[in-house]
């Protein structure tokens, strides 16, 4: 045992003598190097990436459906064709899932104008189209709201003056933008009733200041990505069905 201690002692001495000659920083230089097309590439990297890229491109560019018109979020004051389209198909897909899982009927779908990231061009529709329109990973949640909060939602809509995609609701306003009546699934709004509203998890968590979603009675996570809703719909149809119906109606 004594010898063991002796060994440790020697080692300690050695460490001490070494640490006295440790290195100190004398100068630091910092720079930023831009990676641009003046830098030549290493072709072995391109070869390595190519099979992955080809697989993605083949999948992204295979034609799933056709659109007979260009859908564009910049055209329309209260509604846009792309907004109606998005809200309608999200409503349709979410309603099926919601009924199956929770045995309840969906009443409304509300998305946000800012969440539409691209046009849907006239002609061939591919998986890439879905990625361009919806690059984010947001998924659909269903929020249970009282009729009162649906009124708040309508007021938000009118004060924002943005064509947020909406389905299942008709809001009648007068020429001074005052709300006259609200129809849910073509029936007058009942202030005390519970309505089920499909929206994105981003909005339900307070995105775009949709505060009315915070005053909810319940939240149902459907775990269904909006982009996958688009892709699933594209795969089902030959030609996109787009509604030009007005959902904010000025009397």
């Amino acid at each position: 045992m004594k010898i063991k201690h002796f060994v440790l002692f020697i080692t300690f001495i050695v460490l001490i003598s070494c640490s006295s000659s440790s290195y100190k920083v004398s100068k630091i230089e910092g720079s930023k190097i831009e990676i641009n097309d003046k830098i030549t590439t290493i072709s072995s990297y391109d070869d390595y990436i190519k099979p992955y890229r080809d697989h993605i491109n083949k999948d992204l560019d295979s034609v799933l459906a056709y659109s007979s018109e260009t859908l564009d979020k910049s055209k329309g004051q209260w509604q846009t064709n792309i907004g109606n389209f998005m809200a309608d198909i999200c409503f349709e897909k979410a309603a099926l899932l919601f009924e199956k899982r929770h045995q309840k009927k969906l009443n409304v779908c509300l998305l946000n104008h800012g969440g539409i990231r691209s046009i849907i061009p006239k002609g061939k529709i591919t998986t890439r189209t879905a990625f361009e329109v919806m690059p984010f990973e947001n998924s659909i949640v269903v929020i249970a709201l009282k009729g009162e909060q649906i009124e708040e939602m309508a007021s938000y809509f009118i004060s924002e003056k943005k064509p947020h995609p909406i389905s299942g609701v008709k809001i009648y306003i007068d020429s001074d933008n005052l709300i006259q009546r609200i129809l849910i699934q073509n029936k007058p709004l009942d202030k005390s009733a519970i309505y089920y509203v499909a929206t994105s998890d981003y909005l339900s968590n307070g995105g775009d200041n949709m505060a009315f979603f915070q005053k909810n009675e319940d939240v149902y996570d459907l775990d269904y990505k909006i982009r996958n809703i688009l892709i699933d719909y594209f795969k089902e149809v030959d030609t996109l069905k787009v509604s030009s119906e007005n959902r904010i109606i000025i009397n």
Partner: protein
Amino acid sequence: MKRRTFLKNTIASSALVSIAGPSLCSFDSLKSKHLTILHTNDVHSHIDPFPADHPKNPNMGGVARRSALIENIRKENPNVLLLDAGDSFQGTPYYNYFGGELEFKLMSRMGYDATTIGNHEFDNGIEGLAAQVPHANFKFISANYDFKNTIMDGFVKPYHVFHKNGIKVGVFGLGVELAGLVDKKLYKETIYNDPVEISQDMVSILKNQEKCDIVICLSHIGYQYKNEPNKICDALLAQKTKDIDLIIGGHTHTFLDKPSVFDNLNGEKVLVNQVGCYGINLGRIDFHLNNDTKTSNGKSIII
């Protein structure tokens, strides 16, 4: 018999140590060394360059170019530490289709030494991150995420000491608060701990126990938050700690023209750098060191 062999061995090894020790030390006398740190952050699956008609970043970035740049720098100085400050995942279909496999395989090919864990690394759930670990030939470093009760347990170290040509470089990692940023069902039982407290613990270990010559914090907590001036960030961390030489940051996609310099608790200079996002830039920090104890009080910073 056994006891005798033990004694023989210990005497032999002690002799060996005492001979080897001083000779190693004398080998190091009066020398200067050069270490190059290369770093990226928030590459977000940008493997291909931006297209020529891209409105914001035409013809920028791309892994094949980055690899060429790194190889050229390695030819100039083989003492390179290549680090990523997190969020290599999510942003192009490469991630949606392959879940980060290609990102990690390419980082391994380029010889990345380590990455920290960004919030987007959880985008396919913590299982989605764990599934890609076998493709990574580099270290995962995070000191303030506790993965004990998750599938990532054992794959992430709080710090690692890299030995580069006789220089000991201690690198510890920091991650951003996950609550409110990432869905709990994705990060599950990952626990976030306070970056400042953890950093003090790390620095103490790296300086006093590991005797590191350079201490680097690989951070994904963000550079600065204008609307939340008290939220912990790299700029505050630099000022609230000591003995960190360099903070390599990410998360806020901050394009710094050059590294920022802050005074730490002891009034010493700390460098903080972040190079934007999407693999558009490569950050480079060169450390020149020497063991000349007479003249090594103080350092010059050229940025």
